[in-house]
């Protein structure tokens, strides 16, 4: 029976958060988002993005590789959307960009919206300038984005990192006291090839691996860092047993992505069994 949990400033009515990109703009109709402790929107970028060309999905052993490519309506349309949006639960807006300025602009412009409870900085956005490396690839790039963003908003910031972020130790140590929580992790860069044609399956060639395949890797990091840091776990939490493991490993809250896609009623099982 998982009750309310507290990160730092934020209190959630339960530890389950609907993950970014898997519940629309916190408005997915079939997932009962009101039952979650919080819901994270799709990642919002300055300009609208049409996303990657299909196919965008391929299933792999116990996992799913997606290359949605941050399809989203962009900041301006999102502001419109918010004007008459009835949020189902604590609302976290995921923010993406290619530069510290992008992040700063978005959190600044959304700072006045009372219905937004926090931001989640998606530091796994690909940086087109550096050939698709993630924007938060190491201590310096992460720090630049965090500095710019912290100056531009008064709302709590969750920081979602890529699993291949370099100098993770240093990032966590330096920024722990300044951010609301770290979200470990976004998807793992991954791909699949059709063994008949020899060609990549995804239209964008590469994507990100999610689902239970990766949970033992994510769990290892949560266990390692949870004593000293405020952590939200993300990656493979698609069964109630796996959810229990992450709670036991010290995660303060759990993001659920693929688990909701596979079963929109998964939250009900979580609330009953974890």
């Amino acid at each position, binding site marked *: 029976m998982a009750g309310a949990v507290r990160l730092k400033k934020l209190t959630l009515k339960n530890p389950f958060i609907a993950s970014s*990109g*898997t*519940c*629309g703009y916190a408005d*997915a*109709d*079939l*997932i009962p988002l009101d039952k979650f402790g919080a819901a994270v929107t*799709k990642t919002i970028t300055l300009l609208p993005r*049409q*996303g990657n*060309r*299909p*196919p*965008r*999905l*391929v*299933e792999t*052993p*116990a*996992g*799913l590789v*997606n290359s*949605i490519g941050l*399809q989203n309506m962009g900041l301006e349309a999102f502001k419109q959307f918010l004007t008459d949006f009835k949020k189902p639960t604590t609302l976290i807006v995921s923010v993406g960009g290619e530069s510290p300025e992008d992040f700063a602009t978005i959190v600044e412009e959304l700072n006045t919206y009372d219905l937004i409870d926090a931001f989640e900085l998606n530091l796994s956005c690909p940086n087109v300038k550096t050939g698709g490396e993630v924007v938060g690839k190491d201590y310096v790039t992460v720090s630049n984005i965090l500095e710019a963003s912290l100056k531009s908003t008064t709302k709590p910031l969750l920081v979602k990192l890529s699993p291949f972020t370099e100098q993770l130790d240093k990032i966590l140590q330096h920024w722990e006291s300044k951010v609301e929580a770290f979200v470990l992790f976004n998807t793992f860069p991954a791909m699949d090839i059709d063994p008949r044609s020899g060609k990549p399956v995804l239209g964008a060639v590469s994507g990100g691996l999610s*689902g*239970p395949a990766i949970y033992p890797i994510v769990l290892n990091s949560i266990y390692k860092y949870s004593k000293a840091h405020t952590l939200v776990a993300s990656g493979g939490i*698609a069964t109630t047993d796996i959810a229990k493991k992450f709670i036991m490993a010290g995660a303060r809250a759990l993001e659920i992505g*693929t688990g*909701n*896609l*596979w*079963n*929109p*009623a998964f939250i009900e099982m979580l609330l009953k069994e974890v």
Partner: protein
Amino acid sequence: MLNETFKLEKTDLGHYVVVFFGPVAEENLPQPGQFYMFYKEYVKKPFSVAFLKENRLFFIIKKVGPFTSSIPDEVRVEGPYGKPFPAVVTNTFLISGGAGIAPICFLAEKLTEQNLPFTWLHGESKAENLILLDYLPVKPNKVSVEPTLVTDLLPKEAQFYCACGPKPMLKGLHSKWGTNGFVSLEERMSCGFGACYGCVIPTTSGYQRVCKEGPVFEAGELLWQELCV
């Protein structure tokens, strides 16, 4: 909306498997063109309803990969999902190819019930697959077997159509008869209910989700060029 575990009854026909479960409650019954997601341990797959019998849902599944080649005995089923075919037009041409027979058969059933006349053309790759027809409540009016293609059977003059089948078939149909019709498309899915934006296809109004805005699209909405790369 159904989200429940069912035992599947299966009849293996070699190339196809006819699968059913149920009965299900009235309010969970589908319209022709709608589909259900079958989930079993980390794999979730869409299948269109082929016909109903006493509120049991029947599916026609073609063996093409791991899931369809060894369909589990028990799955969690979600649905019905997606936008159906318009089942109200008279003299519709129904065009199906391969596993595309499923939603078209259901549509034929519905039209029959409503006494709306239609012509149904179906294409198969091999003659031996036609054994499937014995299991259907309604039969195609004409069948082609490769090297003859179902598009070779089309009357010259364009007709209003509802179609489902491999992309090359749909493309052939579109290039012969133009956009006066509806087609049901397939794309890889993970959720099936609009949450992941994974199943999109290019349309005149941008990328649209096959599971939510589709799977049935007006032929005129689609960017045919991009669709068939």
